[in-house]
């Protein structure tokens, strides 16, 4: 009976989480189009509904009813698999993000997280490293020059920045003393880690943006040289899944930044879930702002930034943090 109850609660949690993620993803697209338009002195979508608010729904219907084309020369199975890999790995990362403190429901304590793994941070990291397959395989399976170039660029970029991403989180784990995301949030009940670890924060945000392949790191889909890069040959909802993956990734980035550096759901006056949503929203806004502001990096600049700046700085940061914890007795 207890097993059954646990399973039901788990399924409800997953359903609410996925529903929320997809809804927010579709409205992030709207927000991005609207904000970018304003940044570029345009109007943006304003025909479907008031302020164009029904535009995401119209887009979704269009994508779902469009004809899907699989190129004759493509590797059919992998071509169909790749978009799903991108979307699924992005969505699964939310399984370990804590939304708030445990709540009491009908006399039982229900944790506000789908699963609190004791290797939660590594789980996120593993999924992020699997996301590379979606891009690389999507580019390869299309059997097209531009898609292949995009896929190779994507793989190279994501492998390079994964290292910096992982190393930037080591000081966070050292301070919290755990890989569990719940424990990391609990460790920030006083001071959020952005105050203690500003360097880590900067490295994390830069390399996570590179992982999400957005401007200024959008070389895998650079439209003026590669068509659309790794998803050139995709159409209909398969293209939609790549798109969805990108916008879920923005939320993941916001949630992880909030959990690792901004104190997660901690905050005064407002309920915990609202605080977390607010922090995710702010990070998403800043990402859209960056997209509207910066030009794309050149390929050698991208590699130099990753390997010659971010990785050495994060290694030094780890040593300095270790010295502080050891000698200043501060943790």
């Amino acid at each position, binding site marked *: 009976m207890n097993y059954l109850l646990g399973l039901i609660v788990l399924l409800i949690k997953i359903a609410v989480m996925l529903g929320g993620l997809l809804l927010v993803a579709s409205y992030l697209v709207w927000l991005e189009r609207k904000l970018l338009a304003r940044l570029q002195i345009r109007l943006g979508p304003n025909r479907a509904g008031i302020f164009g608010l029904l535009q995401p729904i119209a887009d979704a219907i269009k994508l779902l009813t469009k004809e899907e084309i699989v190129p004759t020369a493509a*590797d059919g199975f*992998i071509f169909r698999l790749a978009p799903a890999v991108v979307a699924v790995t992005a969505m699964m990362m939310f399984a370990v993000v804590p939304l708030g403190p445990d709540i009491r429901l009908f006399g039982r304590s229900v944790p506000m997280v789908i699963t609190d*793994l*004791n*290797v939660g941070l*590594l*789980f996120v*990291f*593993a999924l992020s*490293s*699997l996301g*590379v*397959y979606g891009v*690389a*395989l999507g*580019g*390869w*399976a299309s059997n097209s020059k531009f898609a*292949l170039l995009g*896929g*190779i660029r994507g*793989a*190279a970029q994501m*492998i390079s920045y*994964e290292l910096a991403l992982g190393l930037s989180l080591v000081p966070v784990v050292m301070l919290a*003393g755990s*890989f569990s995301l719940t424990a990391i949030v609990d460790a920030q009940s006083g001071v959020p880690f952005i105050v203690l670890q500003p360097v880590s924060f900067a490295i994390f945000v830069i390399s996570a943006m590179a992982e999400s392949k957005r401007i200024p790191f959008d070389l895998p889909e650079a439209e003026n040289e590669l068509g659309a890069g790794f998803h050139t040959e995709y159409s209909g909802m398969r293209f939609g899944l790549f798109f969805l993956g990108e916008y879920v990734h923005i939320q993941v980035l916001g949630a992880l930044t909030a959990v690792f550096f901004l104190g997660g759901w901690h905050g005064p006056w407002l309920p915990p879930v609202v605080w977390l949503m607010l922090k995710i929203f702010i990070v998403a806004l800043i990402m859209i702002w960056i997209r509207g502001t910066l030009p794309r990096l050149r390929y050698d600049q991208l590699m130099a930034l990753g390997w010659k700046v971010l990785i050495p700085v994060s290694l030094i940061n780890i040593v300095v943090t270790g010295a502080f914890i050891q000698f200043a007795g501060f943790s």
Partner: protein
Amino acid sequence: MSILTLLFYAIALLIVAATAMAVTRRNMVHAVLYLVLSFFGTAMLFYLLGAPFLAALEIIIYAGAIMVLFLFLIMMIRLKKLPGMFFPVGQLLPAIFICAGFLAVSSVLVGGNPEGWTPMPAAQASPAAFGVYLFQTHWLAVEIASMLLLVALVGAYVLGRRVRGPSADTRKEAP
């Protein structure tokens, strides 16, 4: 037969099947994907045996980094499919010898110690416990492995470095 035993055999079957597919595929990308599936199985096995930390590392390092590099290379060089026998005899024989030797050594190692056959109680190692054990009892092996990796890194750098004259780009930048 507990549910854990059933899961163990199901996952073991998955690993063996995926690895067999990986070895016999002619399309290199498919082979890489089957190998990734096999690593997934190994990670599940680690998780089942109470080592979530190792399971995560298996996915991050093997499935997420090493196999991506393999894929990267395969995508870059586009191999032609060779006609004829898949395994030439010259490769097949050494492979069989190595497998037989490995089987002999491992069965002696496992079978020689009667404790090797008794089932262990279910336990779960926390990442901290794992780290303390590894770096206190096996620090020498860890250091040797890291030295080996360093040597490999330097070797790869030396092999990959191309000595060439100033190209058009660098000449242009120089005053």
